């Protein structure tokens, strides 16, 4: 592929980092300096969002190719290139990232008091790493961003987190690292196979790696082992049962902004990785492991929902609801049909919006009361009507009420899954009911009934800043709920392309031979 002249994607990726470095130079000894540094971070994230809108406008939905591609030599001797590109799947995840970042910066305006400058710099650096992960078209670059992301996340949880923050930060770091190191070995293997099979030298370029033929057949064939190496790394991130145990700790201990970014964007990387790497690279192994993955996804949905049900800490409940909701994403992907896949991508976006909203709301109430125990609350809706409205809407979107975004995603996933396995679809649908149960149960305990306790009576309703944080999310909930076509039309071509190896004809023609791969002209 010829190198392109546009460097819009590079700007998008590195703008937050540059902005963070500039922001570090602002002296924050005075109150006005402090305010300036917050403001600078907010403006930086908004400018990044504007750049991502430009990317959106230049994106051509008709093509499944990686667009706005950039391709420069980086470490030629290892076949590593600086390669960026965007397609219909990464486009929306990129927009989700740039959309959520200003929101989390605004949300931590008053709740973060120590080391303010470093905090915002880390959030912006994290944004760079996240965008880089979604846009990388080179396995080395992808891995670099993927691992580099851990550094700011580790500090965000470890410095600004709750009581058990150090334990949670360690667990988050080591879990992710252990999984991704195995993926690294698999990447080496693929790159080396590419060299052996083509005789062209090393390459880490994804479309090149897609052409590698790996012997398959059996649960321990090379292709299956590679599949497992990649899938475990991504399943930890998703997180898929039984690799989810880092998530409750990290989510609960992280500061609100950290939880929002974790739930809103970082978990999506697992799903994105499955679509970008696992599906095109290992079609035979995916078909082989389809049923176990679907079963694990269903278990995750039910298990996450049941555990969420018995939580007394609101934030923990939201954390376990993530396990449950991300289970749908795995189901949608491994249903291996366009409906399920579209649902999976859509569900990632919806979960990004609704769970972020829930974490923000929990954070707001925690800032006021410094507790998250459900029993400490009661009848909040009478004292904080605006808060109650926002809470209700976000909650119903999370519980997938028709008319909200959550419904579209889960409905399409179940529809797709029905075509693959009706039994599992029935079980997964049970999870939808359970989801409504624990969420409404929580709402009732916290918000409804008579106002309990003097402290609860004195609670202030949402401030203007908090309204500004929530309104974009509420708009997104309804926009995505009523007009899904707007979102689907940009992703459809890419989704179809990523499922080419799984189309009926491809399956029929041969098992060992890969027929077509996305972005392969």
């Amino acid at each position: 592929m010829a190198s392109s002249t546009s460097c819009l994607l590079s700007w998008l990726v590195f703008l937050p980092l540059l902005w963070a470095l500039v922001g570090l130079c602002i002296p924050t000894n005075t109150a006005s300096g402090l305010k300036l540094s917050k403001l600078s971070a907010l403006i930086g994230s908004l400018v990044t969002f504007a750049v991502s809108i430009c990317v959106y406008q230049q994106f051509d939905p008709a093509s499944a190719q990686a667009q706005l591609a950039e391709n420069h030599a980086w470490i030629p001797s290892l076949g590593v290139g600086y390669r960026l590109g965007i397609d219909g799947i990464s486009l929306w995840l990129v927009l989700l990232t740039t959309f959520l970042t200003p929101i989390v910066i605004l949300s931590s305006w008053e709740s973060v008091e120590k080391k303010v400058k470093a905090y915002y710099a880390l959030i912006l650096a994290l944004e760079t790493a996240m965008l880089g992960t979604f846009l990388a078209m080179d396995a080395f670059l992808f891995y670099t961003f993927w691992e580099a992301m851990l550094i700011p996340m580790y500090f965000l949880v470890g410095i600004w987190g709750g009581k058990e923050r150090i334990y949670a930060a360690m667990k988050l770091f080591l879990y992710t690292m252990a999984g991704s190191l195995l993926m690294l070995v698999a990447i080496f293997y693929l790159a080396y196979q590419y060299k052996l099979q083509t005789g062209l030298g090393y390459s880490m370029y994804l479309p090149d790696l897609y052409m590698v033929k790996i012997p398959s057949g059996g649960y321990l064939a090379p292709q299956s082992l590679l599949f497992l190496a990649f899938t475990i790394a991504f399943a930890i991130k998703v997180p898929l049962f039984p690799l989810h145990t880092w998530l409750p700790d990290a989510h609960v201990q992280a500061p609100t902004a950290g939880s929002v970014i974790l739930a809103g964007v970082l978990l999506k990387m697992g799903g994105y990785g499955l679509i970008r790497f696992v599906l095109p690279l290992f079609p035979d192994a995916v078909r082989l492991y389809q049923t176990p993955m679907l079963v694990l996804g269903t278990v995750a949905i039910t298990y996450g929902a049941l555990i969420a049900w018995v939580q007394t800490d609101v934030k923990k409940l939201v954390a376990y609801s993530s396990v449950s909701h991300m289970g749908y994403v795995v189901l949608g992907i491994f249903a291996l049909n366009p409906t399920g896949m579209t649902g999976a991508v859509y569900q990632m976006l919806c979960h990004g919006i609704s769970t972020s909203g829930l974490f923000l709301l929990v954070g707001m109430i925690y800032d006021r009361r410094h507790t998250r125990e459900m029993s400490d609350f009661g009848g909040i809706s009478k004292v904080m009507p605006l808060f109650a409205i926002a809470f209700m809407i976000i909650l119903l979107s999370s519980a997938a009420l028709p008319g909200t975004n959550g419904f579209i995603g889960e409905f399409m996933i179940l529809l797709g899954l029905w075509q693959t396995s009706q039994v599992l679809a029935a079980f997964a649908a049970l999870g939808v009911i359970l989801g409504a149960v624990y969420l409404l149960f929580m709402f009732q305990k916290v918000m409804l009934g008579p106002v309990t306790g003097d402290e609860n009576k004195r609670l202030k309703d949402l401030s203007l800043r908090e309204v500004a944080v929530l309104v974009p999310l509420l708009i997104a909930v309804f926009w995505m709920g009523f007009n899904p076509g707007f979102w689907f039309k940009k992703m459809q071509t890419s989704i179809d392309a990523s499922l080419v190896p799984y189309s009926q004809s491809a399956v029929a023609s041969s098992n060992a031979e890969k027929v077509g791969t996305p972005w392969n002209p």
Partner: protein
Amino acid sequence: MEPITLTPPPAFGLTAQQLAWLTPYFFVLGGSCLALLLSVYEATKPSISVPATIILAFLGGIATTLPLIEQPPTLLFGGMLIADGFTAYANILFLISAAAVTFFSRRYLLNQDLEHTEFYTLIALSALGMMIMAASTDLVMIFLGLELMSISVYVLVGFRRNDRRSNEAGIKYYILGSAASAVMLYGAALFFGATGTTNVQVGAIRAIQMGMGQNALLIAGLLCILIGFLFKIASVPFHMWMPDVYEGAPAPVTGFMTTGLKAAVFITLLRVFSSMVSVPALSPQAMEAFQNVLWVSAALTMFLGNVAALQQTNIKRMLAYSSIAHSGYLLVGLLAGPQSHDGFSAVLFYVVIYTIMNLGAFAVVSAIAQKGDTGLELNDLSGLSAKHPGLAFLLAVFLFSMAGIPPTAGFTAKYYLFYSAIQAGQVWLVVLAVLCSAIGAYYYLRVIVQLYMREAIAGSPLQNWKPSRAAVTTALAAVILVLQLGIYPAPALKMLRLGPAEAPAGGAPAEAPGH
């Protein structure tokens, strides 16, 4: 032995080419002699003149080595030494390490009331030993270089002579190190007995000519030599001495041992090993047996080094165990070298990066060390970032790099090393290695937790003290290199590729057939 093609008349029986190659050696030797002379005048009141002389000698050595990198290989002293790109790179690495240690240790020595000029002279002499080792193709020369290096370091380890731990470390290192040297010497004798020469390259060729692929004497000799090397790089099961020695030695000396000394031993091992492999001197069965020995040693070294480091509470001791773990990674690369497409360049790259990041880390540790090398418990580091944000940041970058997190050079180096091992078909060893790295991440992160996530303990020794400027400068330079080589390693990789390609035995390592 050498072709006589040069017009200028040879001086001291050496050609101009050979003289040019020996200049860096003269610089270091001259520098140490001059420093010894100066010491006489400064015995009571040491000034900056001795370290300055030594550093100038090192810089002179580096400056005269640089133009030699591209020069064709030259044999010196009747084939006892070989001077090639590989030697040049190695020498630059040793000199940089020695210069940096000299640079940042003065303030440390003043703080500890240890300012004796002999310290610098010993560093220079040990650097000279390393330079001789790296150029040797002859077991006698290897032994000479090794002993010059080791004896200087034995003294340096026990340099805090009023401290029992330092004394213990010095004695321990001396006794065990001598035993290892003896084993190695015995191996050299057996090698000579089998082949009739002490030159490894000539010996390897003779071995193949005389069909000694299975010769017990030769195999036993090589095994003894290998054990000597494994002892010096502290690979399991010859690692017992290391934690005590590293903990007892003054911090800058520990830094010197993990960087220059280790690099020297490893580079020499690389040369001997590749001479044996590229010929190949041994029968396939014997070769496989050697590879199995290395495989087991690499696996155990990585595993035990990392697991033992988990429990350490002293940062110097922790870095000692981490150094054992890194020896294990290096052995993986060494094992894979002959069969991977890039030969040994991945190992060389790793040695370079490891030297840089360890130098930086020990510069910071030396700056932190209080009198009697106290203040190095992990708890003493709590809240360092609040008092000294710069120092904490520098240390954090080195720790992330050692843990192999992008975008630091530690990641690039590990990436290249493990990639080359995959090419050699060592998939399971690499899987083990990455799992060990994941274990390793824990103890590096634990230090970062202390630096950034805990509050300073009241009355900690770090409350009122200013870090030495020289140490911070060294660490800063190392950080710049670590980040630069992490983000854009292409030029360095290209440069290092030149080195080993022509280096050992003057022939490229055997190109492996595809799998």
